[in-house]
């Protein structure tokens, strides 16, 4: 129930569902997340772009899975390391982001926000909405629209 999730309490804090890919710590807006799943069997789609890892059967709905490592231009996952699914709502059904590990939902203060530094390579920077400076690490906020624009 969206009305019970108070993301915008006095408009100073926001909630993000977090995950990690190749040591980087990412977050997406919690309301965009439909569910989180362990590794699922996938059907590859020949001739599709490399970022599209395959199709997943999610209770009768067909979900397209994006490999975030490929999307971010990172190295392949080590052999035997199974990705997790972060399933996002999308206007065209659900899509799944394949990530290394799923983290907690965290609440961050708007005061800690900064736009992504110019020095981040353009390809990665355009997918970032910004950075939250957490006490011990940085939370990179992804723009889901940009991520799914391939």
């Amino acid at each position, binding site marked *: 129930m969206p009305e019970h999730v108070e993301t915008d309490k006095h408009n100073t804090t926001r909630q993000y569902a977090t995950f990690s890919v190749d040591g980087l710590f990412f977050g997406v807006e919690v309301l965009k997340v439909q569910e989180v799943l362990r590794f699922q*069997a*996938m*059907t*590859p*789609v*020949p*001739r*599709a772009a490399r970022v*599209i890892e*395959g*199709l*997943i*059967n999610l*209770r*009768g*709905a*067909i979900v*397209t899975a994006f490999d975030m490592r490929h999307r971010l231009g990172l190295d392949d996952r080590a052999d035997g390391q199974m990705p997790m699914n972060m399933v996002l709502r*999308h206007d*065209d*059904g659900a*899509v799944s982001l394949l990530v290394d590990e799923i983290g907690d939902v965290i609440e961050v203060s708007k005061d800690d926000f900064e736009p992504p530094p110019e020095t981040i390579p353009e390809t990665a920077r355009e997918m970032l909405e910004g950075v939250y400076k957490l006490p011990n690490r940085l939370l990179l906020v992804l723009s889901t629209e940009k991520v*799914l624009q*391939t």
Partner: protein
Amino acid sequence: MDETQEIIEEFLIESNENLTQLDQDFIKLEQQPDDNALLSSVFRTIHTIKGTGGVLGFGILEAITHRAESILSQLREGERRLTPALTTLLLETVDIVKKILREIEASGNEGSERYLDLVERLQAVCDDKSGAEAVAPEQASAGNPGGLERSYPPASEPVEEVAAEGDEHPHFARQPDSASPAEGEQGEPPAAVPAATRSSVTDANIRVSVDLLDKLMNLVGELVLTRNQILQYTDTQEDAAFTATSQRLNLITTELQANVMKTRMQPIRVVWNQFPRVVRDLGQAFGKQLELQMDGANTELDKTIIEAIKDPLTHIVRNSCDHGIEMPEVRAAAGKPSKGTVLLRAFHEGGQVNIEISDDGAGINPDKLKQKAVQNGILTLDQAERLSQREALDLTFLPGLSTAKQVTNVSGRGVGMDVVKTNIEKIGGSIDLQSRLGHGTTLKIKIPLTLAIIPALVIECAGERFAIPQVNLVELVRLETGQEGQQQIELIGDTPVYRLRGKLLPLVYLSDVLGLDGSHETGESVNIIVLQADQKTFGLVVDAVHDTAEIVVKPLSKLLKGLNCYAGATIMGDGHVALILDVMGLAQLGGVVGESASHVQSAADSRDAGAAEKQAVLLFRAGAKDRLAVPLALVDRLEEFGVEAIELSGERQVVQYRERILPLMPLGSYLSGTEGDAASDEKVQVIVFSEGTKRIGIVVDEILDIVDEAITIRSRSSQPGILGSAVVGGQVTDFIDLHYLIEEASGDWFGGKSGAAAEGAHILVTEGSRFTRGLMRTHLEMAGYRVHEAANSEEAMECLRSETVDVLVSSLDLPGESGGQLLTRVRGLPDVGKVPALGLSLSAEELSRRPETGPAFDEYQLKFDRAAMLHSIEKLASAVLERKPETVGTGADV
């Protein structure tokens, strides 16, 4: 009667829904009298009831709603303001309307109560725009529906009053006048009717969004999968109770699935119901006597399909009435009953719905169609003559063709049947036309039961499963290797082909097309799936063929829309996702069909290449070639000359033939460079060809046969004098290139070769038909040009960007973008854009009415006028070559 009942039921359901809304709207309106949207909505509801009521012949309903509508119209126009009194009057009207509707539902008619008082009061308000005095006395009972009936003055006609109380009749007493005198008191509020006593149509139906049904179907699909898993698990269990429960689960799930599927089904009657009216009106309009018979109106189809076939069916029925059925006099003269019959039939067969629309009218004259096609420049005279009756009938489906002598407002504009065909094919159906001249026409349509579930063949390639819709499937071929299997796949260059009953079937390896790992040597056997894509047949080689299955088609995400080799995805029995292959897309990827090949063009293509059509061919032997062929249509005569009759004129052999000199060409020695054995015989066999007044004789060793066969030239030959080879009578046969040979034999036959000025120029030939393209290439190469080919404007643009092109030759009618559009694009290119261009057309008529807009080609010629074409090209090419030294590297650097 049944159909009228259905319409009435629909009307009741809809009206009741709207009226419920209306009550609320009026109350809201009272608070916000200026809300125009609200007013409009109220107005629409009343207007709809008035309109439908009028059509269905409910006069009282119409009279009341008409006046209410007038008042609402005045409100909407701002001519009057809504007062509480007026609201009361309108609400009262709504109540009366509801009452009448209930009466209609119960007895099938409005009852005899005329509600004259209400009509009068409404009329009074209508007429008196200044105020609402007429309703003032009723204010006391405002807003109280219970008070409604009391507001009637004592009935002036008590008899009617009693009869009007039919609203309490139980549903089962539906026949008119069953009226036991009303049980209900006069003045019992309608709201107090106990719902339990009625199972009326309005209560028995609810509207559900299709989205919800789709969701249900999805979930049921999932349930079925879960059930399957449980059943598998059950097999390993001993527990009797558990087994029994899973059996029950099994049964219930199956039934649930069937019923959920049913929710989306509608009888075809929904579409057909409008036809009696259509047919009647058309009969009136044309002065024809028409009868419509319907058979199988209860045949059920998926809702989406019902919607998709509505327009095509209407079009066909109108066509049948308009130019199928003759005028009564004509029919009488032909010994037919003066009343013409249009028969609609629908039935299920083989998992498909068959719909037939037949009339006993005049039938279609295939010769007239051909004539028309030639007139309109769709076919050449020659092509038209070669068409079979059946193919001629199929011309009906080409755009721009109508045999109706007059264009009526109903049909005859020559748009329509092509659209009908496209629409039917869009939903995976097929349409077939049969006609007997004088006896009538039958159109047979086959469509799938539902779009959501299709029968498909499940295959495997590189470890992945794929589904292929069965509509596209022609047959399965399995080649056992080890014996002769593997050898039956042959290579033409790098292109694998297979001889399927004497015809060459181009093969496409699925693993190649999809870029999967997979070797062509699969060991024991090769599985070829013969598929049909847009009139082209090809074989798809896969690793394994599994099974057929009914699959639920799910669309792919937009993120994957660019991939046209998939038609969607489905979930297999084990829960895994499998991709559904799009056969047309595969054919394009495999190069079997051009990127944008349209239906019409490919139809013309196959006619050109003779793929689907029989053609008489003369087979003969000459020199080293055992089997040569030439289309019989080109042959003038077969002659036999004594060796002694052959004389020499210069270096050329000639005979005197019909008081002229006939130049001879010894084909055997020409092709193989050796002497044929003809010389040793007493007589020589000569095939005489003529064009205009000129003749030439080709000397062959032996005339073998004349065969009537569907022939496709499969591969072009590089040997001069040979056009290409095809399979004729089960054997590979070379077709001779008559133009070339004739030219060789008599240099001056067509006015000599092209001048050397233009030699070596690069010509880009853009032409949709592969056959014609090949022919033009031969002509051009013969004349010393270098030729690039393009099948459509895309390929042409590509070639212009990457190659040096001195002259662009383009057919005006290309598949997809026309030649004119191509030229517009070309002219927009920098540098290359200035390339001289020659436009080719099939008909002189098209040439004369070429469009004024857009850039013009530098020259126009007829497509098969070879001499004129070469002349134009030479002119254009030499102009370029003269200029060339100044413009360096046109286009080559792109």
